[in-house]
């Protein structure tokens, strides 16, 4: 497993934890953040953070040296 692959797996695990219970259980009580219900703000912000994280991770050049499978030439 390369370092980069490890980072993607780590992001997967982190996002799965932060977008699930029991962390979400924190928001069962009515809280408001800037006029928005807290769970909505929290979920959308984490969601956006995941997207931004992926954006930067793939932008800094994931070694995607995929060539379509080549037939050997004689």
């Amino acid at each position, binding site marked *: 497993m390369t370092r980069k*692959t490890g980072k993607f797996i780590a992001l*997967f695990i982190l996002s799965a934890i932060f977008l699930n*219970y029991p962390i979400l259980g924190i928001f069962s009580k009515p809280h408001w953040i800037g*006029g928005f219900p807290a*769970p909505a703000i929290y979920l959308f912000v984490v969601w956006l953070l995941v997207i931004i994280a992926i954006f930067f991770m793939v932008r800094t050049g*994931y070694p995607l040296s995929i060539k379509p*499978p080549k037939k050997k030439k004689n």
Partner: protein
Amino acid sequence: MGLSTFVVASLVYILILFFIAFYTDSRTVKSSWVNNPYVYSLSLAVFCTAWTFYGSVGKAAKSGMGFLPIYLGPTMLAPLWIIIFRKMILISKAQRITSIADFISSRYGKSTFLGSLVTIVAFLGIIPYISLQLKAIADSFDLLATFSINQTSVSNPTEVSSVFYNTAFYITIVLALFTILFGTRNVDPNERHEGLVTAVAFESIIKLVAFLGVGIFVTYFLYDGFNDIFSKAALNPKTAPLLFLPESSASEWFWLTILSMCAFMFLPRQFHIAIVENINPNHVTKAMWLFPLYMLIINIFVLPVTLAGIMQFENMNIRADNFVLELPLANGQNLLGLLVFIGGLSAATSMVIVETTALSIMVSNHLVIPFLLTNLTKDKSEAKDISQRVILVRRITILIILLIAFAYVRTIATNRELVSIGLVSFAAVTQFAPILLAGLFWKGATKAGAISGLFAGFFIWAITLTVPTLAEYGLLSKSIFTEGYFGVSWLKPYELLGLSGFDQISHSAFWSLLFNTSIFFVVSLYKSPTPSEITQADYFVNIYKYMNMGSEFEVLKRQAKMDDLRFLLKRFLGEDRAHILLRIYEEENNINLDKITIANADVIAYAETQLAGALGGSSAKILIGSVVKEDPISLDEMLHVLDQTQEIIVTNRELERKSKELQETTEQLQHANEQLKELDRLKADFVTTVTHELRTPMTSIKALSKILLDNKDLPKEQHDEFLNIVVLETERITRLINQVLDIEKLQSNAFDWRFERLNINRLVDRVQKGFLPVFEEREIEFEMKFLETDVTIYGDSDRLTQVIVNLIANAVKFTNTEGGYIALIIERLNEGTIAIKVIDNGKGIPVEKQSMIFERFTQIDDPTEGKPTGSGLGLFISRSIVEHHKGKLYVESMPDMGATFVIELPVYMD
């Protein structure tokens, strides 16, 4: 705005789709159009169906944020696309995978049975999902119809439904037509439909724009922004609970994220778009963040629209699924209503089109064709192009799928929520997750394991989710809910094995995945795979290893007649396409297939891959199998191959060891060689010296003899003197030759040693007696000292005598001419050693030359006295003899203080 406007609009919209798809397909340069990550990402948004468009609001009206896990699942998964999708795409491109059924069947040894099983599970699981889309279309027509009749919101839409379900029916037919036209253009080995993908991407834009449109309208025109809606909703007892997360929904939330992750990967349409229609694996990296972003945007307004809908229609009987369409219409925004209607239509149609295309490929390749092939005569006169038949099968399949789905809407699904129907399908395709994911990364996953795991999961899915539905509609006794299946209390469909406290979906997902996964792993571990399974398993798991190889990795070496292969390709791909494909192969491999009668494994693999692209892996395997002579490779042979590999590894290690040994031996040899070279040099020196030594006396003998011969009248005295010299020189030569022979014998161990017990005193005594006249003649003072007690040594008497004689003769030679002194002393050095010392009072031997004198031909030159007489071999021979007696011979000397030669010999012990 009348209903007819909407009917016309939807027809126009579908016509636009036709145009886009047709235009894309007819472009000659296609690559630049579809071949970009944005179209790929948008086409992935086929994930967002009518369920998203209408159903999210329906779900949110019940559980607030509870609609979100469906989109959070794929978002969490997004970082892993690069690992999972990339691998799946590479495998699929290399093996020309046509569908998820093909993928799973190919992974497990191209199993026809497994392919069929996956197809059946997908078919049964997806039908409700497709009907959900048709229902959404029908419902929206229904709504519009009642609306246009009353021009107000209407409470009971069912009165007019029959008419407008007919409209929905016609829409269904038009959709079938579209799918048939663009999803089954031809039997393409690439199974790519660029027109269809472009149309789907276009639809993704439309549904996004439509939903954002209604969202913005509701949030900013009906209300005064988000804050306004939320603050008003907080005051309303119906909406207030929706703003926050309920404490109890943890398991439902979790299972929904799991199900949606699996659905995103394994729904036939998702697999089709993400894997089969993928043009460039690099597009995945951009889609990894673009697609989650799309989902985020389309979901922003779900909660506001829901809250607004509930508050607006508080006392009316309006289903939350309809809020999206109802809100603009009720507020007189007919144009926006039209846009929303089109958006819903696009969400539904894109799903239906891709899903039915993918399903039709699966059904034709894994259910119909394998069945056809077993009945197919190999009669070559029936050379009719069979690809037409394949296309026909697919078209009929599409029609049948849509009609079944339509029937399902009319009979069963009329009153269920969109979301709950969709989740049943999600749970069905989730059953593919263990066997597919484990198959990608674990070589030990076997066909038997996959089949039993999938069976188990499918069975649990059926009894916990679908059979209960039949009961709800009265097709089965409702007693199963209270008493369990067959009256067994722990077989209640929603409380299997007594497990309660779960919602239906979580309950079913948990049990089905548990049984599926554990049975799959256990059977995989206990049932060994067949050879073809091992081959495919290794290919899937280690795809990167195989990427740049041809068919050389194939274990099965197959042969077929080239004519047979050509015939197969023509029959199933059509004459022209077969011709083109073979030409491509010829180009790539630089050979002329016309000249070949027997095709090798490489050509066969190529043909199989092309056929697989059209008919799926398992069908292609059957077809190729019908013309290929394949030495049926048994498990034993396979194991043999593996054994050979093992042997090779062992042999390699052995070789490594051997080569190390060889290296050592080489070093030793090199060393020996250097020694030999040194010896050779010594030998050459030796020969030179011997020759020189021989020549000197020979020269004088020759000269003197000639004088004697020429001068017969030489005086008698001189005559005698000359003859005397000749005799002396001859003796010298004889001695030299004897010594050389001695050396030769010593070196080749050919000396005839005669070892015996000897009294050392007696031996030395005998020698010294022989020299007494010499000492007298030369006036040398001689001293002799024997051991007091007799000591026995073990040795060769003659040889030891020779040594002592040699040493004494040397002493005589080098001792002072005036007042010469020689001593011969025998000493006992210790218990086991005696020493014989020969002492003279000559000029001694310089320390630096003391070791040299024992070498061959070393004589100590003395500038004042010239070259001494003697061969220079005596001491060398003496030392060799003493060493042969396990003794030592050495000299102790100081210049001008005489020299002491010491012979040390071991004492003989009994």
